[in-house]
């Protein structure tokens, strides 16, 4: 796994506008003009976001010199999704074990408490 690539993907996803652009592109490719309309942002701002997404490999631009349609490259999300899945699993399993462990602690404390009372 190339760390720098994963960094770029998570960096690109950390911005709400960029996530919204990706969500819009799940419906199909779009021109920059199409993308500017719903966001109430300037074209240069949208273009800047697109550069970040492109750098992360999350979108590609068509060849058509005039429109250069923006297309989602969903496969680039797979390593990020995989990483998050692994992370969730790591902690999910830890917290299952914690559940069993605190029940154990609880029982031990109760027993200990009972012994103390008897000794008094």
């Amino acid at each position: 796994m190339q760390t720098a690539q994963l960094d770029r993907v998570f960096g690109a996803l950390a911005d709400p506008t960029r996530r919204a652009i990706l969500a819009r592109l799940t419906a199909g490719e779009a021109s920059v003009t199409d993308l500017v309309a719903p966001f109430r942002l300037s074209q240069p701002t949208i273009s800047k976001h697109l550069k970040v997404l492109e750098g992360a490999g999350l979108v590609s631009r068509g060849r058509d010199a005039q429109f250069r349609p923006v297309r989602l490259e969903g496969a680039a999300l797979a390593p990020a999704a995989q990483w998050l899945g692994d992370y969730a699993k790591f902690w999910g399993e830890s917290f299952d074990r914690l559940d069993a462990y605190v029940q154990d602690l609880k029982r031990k404390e109760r027993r200990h408490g009972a012994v103390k009372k008897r000794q008094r």
Partner: protein
Amino acid sequence: MAPSKSDSDNPPFVISRDYDAPPRLLFKAFAERQHIMKWFGPVGWPVTMCEMDFRTGGRWRMAMTGPSGVQNTPFGGTYLEMPDRKIVFDNGFEVPGAGRMVMTVTFEPLDANRTRLVFSTQFGSAEMRAEHLGMGFEQGLGSGLEQLDDLVRSLAV
């Protein structure tokens, strides 16, 4: 200490769990070496090294050993805050240039004997993620990054 960027810029990853135990016991399970060693990490990856100086500014270090029998790269950091019912610490692998993340655990009482544990991770850098990937766990989503989740699901790559 300002360990990372603002929340809106860098959304935390959140896992929440309800436990049938008082907050005091859960806090203890995180705060004491002999306890945390018993539950930390996935099944099959026991904690085989654990050093902790549990006080604000104190350091902690851990390593796990996987099924291959080789001890994994140690990781650890500093306890940043520990008021009642909350522990904040940072974490990173002990390799040059590794990114760091800040983890916050809160223990919220639901009633006298029940606790909601909320665990959130603020990622400093994705380098950490790559390190975890190297451990070879498999898929299993349960993320608090809802937007990313939705996106990933809608793409179903």
